[in-house]
């Protein structure tokens, strides 16, 4: 398969991917998380142990967005080299595949309107957010993500992880922002204890960041 990550794995060559570093030696692959320090914790040598470890950030909060630059720090894992692809998949699902498809020109990219049109129930409101609000929501969420939103027209380098479609957390954030446009809630102090994607909860860090951005950029409709 094409793509820098797949090529590096095939060649047994060290590379960085999102927030992790990958190195090979003596038939084994070692993945190192961010902020390893002098003595990073060694995880149990299974892909499942890795997957479970990266589900939570340093504060113990659930990470529903795999690309969020909130990977827990100070760990490493060593596995048989044949499991390198599975290990990447455990940290960043579909990312190596999408990188390879982008390199081959076969990546299926879905514009926001297509993804929004597919939504049902209360998620339909995500498509009602004005373009300026949507750009602010994207900047708020995608700005802290290791994936590059090519669905929004951004170009991704060969080393980047392309994101071909607006993700569930972004749709949820847009849904809330559409409501906030109509009736802005009062701001609250950001609270790192609020779950990452609890956008309905005052104090959620992404909510408060986006509310501030929206207050500074009224919608075209609001401006009259």
């Amino acid at each position, binding site marked *: 398969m094409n793509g820098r990550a797949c090529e590096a794995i095939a060649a047994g060559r060290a590379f960085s991917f999102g927030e992790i570093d990958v190195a090979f030696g003596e038939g084994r692959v070692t993945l190192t998380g961010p902020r390893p320090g002098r003595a990073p914790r060694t995880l149990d040598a299974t892909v499942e142990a890795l997957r479970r470890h990266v589900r939570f950030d340093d504060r113990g909060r*659930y990470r529903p*967005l795999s690309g969020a630059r909130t990977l827990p720090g100070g760990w490493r894992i060593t596995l048989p080299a044949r499991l390198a692809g599975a290990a990447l998949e455990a940290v960043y699902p*579909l990312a190596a595949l999408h990188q390879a498809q982008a390199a081959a020109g076969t990546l299926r990219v879905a514009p926001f309107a297509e993804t929004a049109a597919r939504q*049902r129930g209360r998620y339909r409101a995500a498509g009602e957010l004005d373009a300026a609000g949507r750009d602010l929501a994207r900047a708020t969420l995608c700005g802290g993500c290791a994936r590059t939103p090519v669905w929004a027209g951004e170009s991704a380098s060969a080393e980047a992880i392309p994101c071909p479609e607006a993700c*569930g*957390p972004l749709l*949820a954030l847009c849904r809330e922002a559409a409501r906030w446009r109509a009736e802005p809630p009062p701001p609250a102090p950001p609270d790192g204890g609020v779950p990452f994607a609890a956008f309905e909860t005052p104090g959620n860090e992404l909510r408060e960041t986006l509310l501030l951005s929206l207050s500074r950029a009224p919608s075209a409709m609001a401006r009259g």
Partner: protein
Amino acid sequence: MSGPRRALLLAGHGSQLDARSGEAVRAHARRLAASGAFDEVLTGFWKEEPALARALDGCRADDVVIVPAFMAEGYFVNEVVPAELGLDGPLTRRGGRMLRLARPLGAHPLLAEAVAARALEAGAAADGAVFVLGHGHPRDPRSARAVRAQVGRIRATGRFARVEAVFTDQAPRADAIPALADGRAATVVPFFAAGGWHVGRAAAAIPANARLAAPAGAHALATDALAALAREAARG
């Protein structure tokens, strides 16, 4: 010469708020992958990664069976899963590939066995009352249908003195359990695909003296049910 490559996709709900929500589906997928019955076993979630809409991005199979790991033949199975995967109905032909949509997990008779097993694990006795706690929907009768069907199957075994359906979102609700139990020890089995928000809410609603079992949809028997549903859909 080998035949067409066959894949199984387990379509789950997942959650952006609760890490437990997708774990049962992943455990089913690991067991089914180990069985070797399919060339590929994939997972896709509505509210988790990998997203349903992208779950087949790397799939190389010609023939894909999609089994919804949902308990009712309702909104998710009939609207969300087909919309996310671009399905035309039970059978979709796209780009030389067959996509077969199976019945949902909660429809299979093995789930009655899973409920009974969960009740026994939690300590239910033959003279006790077992309550199968489903989601339900006040405006969509399809949501409760699978729960009632499984209740009928468990009753028919005569294994427990009383078996009743209760729901989180329609009557009868969990607050009816004391009256329905009629003095018998009550065991509540969540008829959900996984632990998570719904089961947590259910736990908060049941009477303090009732036993709460683990969700039926996360039982190993549910893995067998998923495999059976996949075989059923593959036969067409």
